[in-house]
């Protein structure tokens, strides 16, 4: 009897926690969509019609749903990478650079390493993860040894990675077959590609990789000592030190994992969708930044990030659909998602600042 009561209490707590965790992003999403509606109105269109088309062509028709999930794959993985470092209190804006570097290394390995395709593909993914991890370790070591702000260094390294990969794709690695105009590498061998999961679309096994990464994140954050130490470091550094956490070690492992995960986002794109590395294919699509926003909207909770990533990628797929049909620029999707993030950020305050005045003002403002 008693155990049942405790069980009930636990369930109640879980549901309550879930409700509280969900309320903020949901309210913020509604406000974000309202801002989007105002923008659509300003463009001289009917917001309800536009949203109807937008969601129809992102979630409700199978073809578009598959596109949404395909696009969500790298976004989910980037969100996990962002979540990994931000949870631990390391403001890493460099997921893009880590992804780009790792992916280029993975592609090069896949192109030039001889051997049985499946084995080469596995080695390529691992090599990419190692490269991503090293690229993420660079700013961490600078922060540790020289106390250099990781915010700036990680962001600077994005530009460095983008320019250098662009150099490689434009000159030494360029595919010279065909007209040779496109800035891209040759295709990777057929045996290395991830299988397609749908015969009518490009939906591929990369999505399964993304789910595995989510499972890994859930496991590591909720079930391991490392996850606890890492989170404590971000939550309250002095408490973590008091509890005997070795901060430097935790930081280096956290950032290495971040970089490794980030590289998988790009590898999934290359091995599952494009089969080659094309210039700025990972930066112009702003996967990393969408992932970052998903992470922020979901409050860095792995399962939350998974669903928010899919939602945001749906907005983008819907956005490009309405650009084609209604002439509203697809950036409407980005505008909506940035507003959601801003509303979430204001909401977070209301929970922490307990002054009644702040609550009232915040409520009005939001």
């Amino acid at each position, binding site marked *: 009897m008693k155990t049942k009561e405790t069980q009930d209490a636990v369930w109640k707590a879980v549901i309550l926690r879930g409700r509280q965790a969900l309320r903020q992003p949901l309210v913020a999403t509604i406000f974000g969509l309202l801002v989007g509606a105002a923008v659509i109105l300003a*463009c001289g269109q009917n917001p309800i019609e536009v949203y109807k088309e937008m969601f129809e062509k992102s979630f409700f028709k199978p073809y578009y749903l598959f596109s949404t999930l395909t696009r969500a794959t790298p976004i989910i993985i980037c969100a996990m990478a962002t979540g990994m470092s931000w949870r631990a209190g390391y403001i890493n*804006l460099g997921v893009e650079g880590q992804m780009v570097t790792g992916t280029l290394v993975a592609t090069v390995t896949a192109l030039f390493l001889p051997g049985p395709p499946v084995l080469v593909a596995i080695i390529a993914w691992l090599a990419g993860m190692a490269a991503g991890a090293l690229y993420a370790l660079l700013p961490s070591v600078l922060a540790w040894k020289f106390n250099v702000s990781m*915010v700036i260094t990680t962001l600077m390294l994005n530009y460095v990675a983008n320019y*250098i990969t*662009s150099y490689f794709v434009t000159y030494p690695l360029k595919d010279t077959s065909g007209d040779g105009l496109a800035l891209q590498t040759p295709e990777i061998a057929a045996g290395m590609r991830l299988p397609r999961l749908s015969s009518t679309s490009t939906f591929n096994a990369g999505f399964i990789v993304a789910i595995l990464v989510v499972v890994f994140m859930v496991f590591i954050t909720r079930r391991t000592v490392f996850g606890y130490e890492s989170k404590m470091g971000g939550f309250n550094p002095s408490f973590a030190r008091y509890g005997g956490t070795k901060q430097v070690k935790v930081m280096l492992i956290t950032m290495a994992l971040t970089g490794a995960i980030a590289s998988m986002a790009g590898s999934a794109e290359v091995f599952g969708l494009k089969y080659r590395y094309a210039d700025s294919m990972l930066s112009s699509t702003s996967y990393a930044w969408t992932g970052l926003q998903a992470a922020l909207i979901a409050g860095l909770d792995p399962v939350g990030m998974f669903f928010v990533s899919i939602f945001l990628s749906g907005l983008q797929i819907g956005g490009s659909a309405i650009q084609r049909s209604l002439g509203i620029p697809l950036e409407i999707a980005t505008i909506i998602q940035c507003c959601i993030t801003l509303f979430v*950020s*204001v909401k*977070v305050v209301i929970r*922490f600042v307990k002054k009644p005045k*702040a609550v009232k003002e915040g409520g009005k403002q939001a």
Partner: protein
Amino acid sequence: MNSAYIASVINSTLRSTTPILLAALGCAMCSRVGVFNVALEAQMLIACFTSIAVNYFTSNVLLSVLAGVLSGAVVGAVVAILQVKYKAADMVVGTALNLLVGAITTFLLYLVFGLRGKLVDNRLVSLGKINLPVIKDIPFLGRVLENLTIIDYLSYIIAIVLFVYLFKTVAGFRTLSVGINKSAAESLGTKATRIQMEMVTLSGALCGLGGVVLSMGQVTMFTENMTSGRGFIAMAASSLGMAHPLLVIASSLFFGLCQGIGLALQNVVKAQLTNTLPYIATIVALVIFSKRNSSAKLKK
């Protein structure tokens, strides 16, 4: 390496310095009042777009500059409201605003002009170029100061004005006191929150002016995300200059020099590689000056 070549590198250094200097001054003012403003990039980019858009429709340089500065200040005010008034997390607000402005400018570029990527047009008027009467005939110096805009000169004057304001006036002392200890300043009757919001808005205006130079100075055009990380380089400049307006001039000149050298090297080395120079230099500079920097380092 003759003197004419050196003069032209210095010239392009001065031109590249201005946007970074203005944004770095904005950042310095924010850190002086204890606000970590990550949205510098957004404040610059919106001004790049607004000034070019107003320029396109009015062909009036003064109006475009004012519009640019104003739009930067508006984004600054948004940062002030969210971060100072509602105490929202600085990183979240900054990142979201940087992305939001990137999206808004691209959105409007397509909606208003029907263009993707960039806006170049014959009717766009660039900022007036100044060639000082006597100096332009002096061989080396003439080339160094050739074709600079009025804002290039103005930015140094602004730095000096900010220095005088912060360290030589009572209002400046009040401002500094907010950054040192907000509650102590408040207890003495200083309107700390208001000063913070004013300074963040001011940083928006300064970044706005920097954005205007970027889009109407050396070139007269708007390109998507044309600020390309300058807001963050400015953050590094402000941090290296320990948020002191005069030291910020020196650190900004260093980053300007890196861009100048990068441009000069483009004839020898592939552009993709020289383009990385300012970013790598930023990291190297932060590392080299890290010890001295640790007392006034950024919050995160």
